[in-house]
């Protein structure tokens, strides 16, 4: 550096000590501001990113369930890091108020009106700091916040409608577990499907099918299912609402209902 970098400027008043103190103050102030305001924000975003990671993990779990059920593989292990909460299994055979299930009305081949109930069970992640509850139920990933109304569907189940055959295919996945199990940290979820899938119905003949969702009292995912059924994912134009949580399909000429029973051996 030149002695006088602007010609004729007098640098008698320049003090290295004051300069140092000024810069040091700026640095300390900067650190204080980050600690005061930035750190809580960082923590907030940490919770958010934990939830997002778990959302992806639950999609992985859903994919493994798909392999187990739709590809007829008997055993499947999934190892995943559970961050910011823990994962629980809900047995489908629970009969208390926390049970959630689907009911389907259709005509069987003899013309009689049949009503079938499918308990779902679930693998559910509950965030410890945030309020998110992400569930894998019935082959779908659904998410909700416990203090808020409503829920969203993160990943769809594989129900489908074939337009050229007018065929509606519904898959129900029941999750069973002998014991109450939960996991956090690194969880190894062992699943098996030793019972062959059951074709509950394979009926032909033009008819309307009614599907009703009965939500869990505390973990109500009915908005997610409503948006899924009434959106255009399955049928163009969606199902028509028929009362609370009840949906009517358009006329179909073939209905297939398959039920899978997946057992969670261990978490």
């Amino acid at each position: 550096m030149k002695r006088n970098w602007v010609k004729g400027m007098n640098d008698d008043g320049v003090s290295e000590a004051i300069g140092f103190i000024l810069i040091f103050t700026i640095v300390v102030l900067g650190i204080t501001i980050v600690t005061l305001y930035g750190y809580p924000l960082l923590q907030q975003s940490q919770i958010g990113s934990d939830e997002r990671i778990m959302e992806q993990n639950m999609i992985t779990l859903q994919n493994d369930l798909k392999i187990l059920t739709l590809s007829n593989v008997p055993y499947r292990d999934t190892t995943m890091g559970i961050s910011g909460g823990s994962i629980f299994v809900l047995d489908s055979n629970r009969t208390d108020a926390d049970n959630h299930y689907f009911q389907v009305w259709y005509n069987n081949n003899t013309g009689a009106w049949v009503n079938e109930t499918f308990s779902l069970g679930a693998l559910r992640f509950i965030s410890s700091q945030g309020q998110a509850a992400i569930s894998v139920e019935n082959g779908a990933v659904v998410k909700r916040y416990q203090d808020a109304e409503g829920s969203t569907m993160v990943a769809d189940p594989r129900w489908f409608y074939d337009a050229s055959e007018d065929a509606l295919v519904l898959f129900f996945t029941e999750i069973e577990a002998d014991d109450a199990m939960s996991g956090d940290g690194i969880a190894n979820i062992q699943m098996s499907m030793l019972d062959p899938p059951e074709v509950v119905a394979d009926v032909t003949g033009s008819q309307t099918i009614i599907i009703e969702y009965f939500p869990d009292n505390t973990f109500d995912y009915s908005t997610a299912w409503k948006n899924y059924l009434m959106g255009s994912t399955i049928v163009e134009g969606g199902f028509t609402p028929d009362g609370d949580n009840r949906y009517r399909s358009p006329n179909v000429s073939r209905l297939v209902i398959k039920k899978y029973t997946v057992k969670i051996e261990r978490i």
Partner: protein
Amino acid sequence: MESLDDEGQWIVLMGVVVATGMFILAIIINQAPMVGQSTAEAVLEFPKNEIQDIRYHLAPIAQLDANTTGLIDKENKMRADMQALSMARNNAVMDFDIDRNTGFEDLFYQYNRLDIHYNNGVTTYDEEYSVPVRL
């Protein structure tokens, strides 16, 4: 500030450049798992073998002559069996249609057209397959 030397300012600049680069890379890496997963899933889930199997089993019935006794009956039985099997094993809706009067023929063969429709919820597939029948 007399004794300060500013010759090394490029080091600070490089620091900024490297930090920005790492930041951008981190964002890209964060996006990567999702893309990889859905792409791999799409490739894995294409039911190539299932469709080949269906074609393999339907070709013999498409080769039958239009005057075969009980042809409609045979076709309907085949249809019922294939539909039940496709649903039980591959969770798929399938149907087929055979046209024996396509008018396509050459010196040795006539060609019947076999239309296969296959839908397993992820893949919807329609194909027209010309089955050669020796004249």
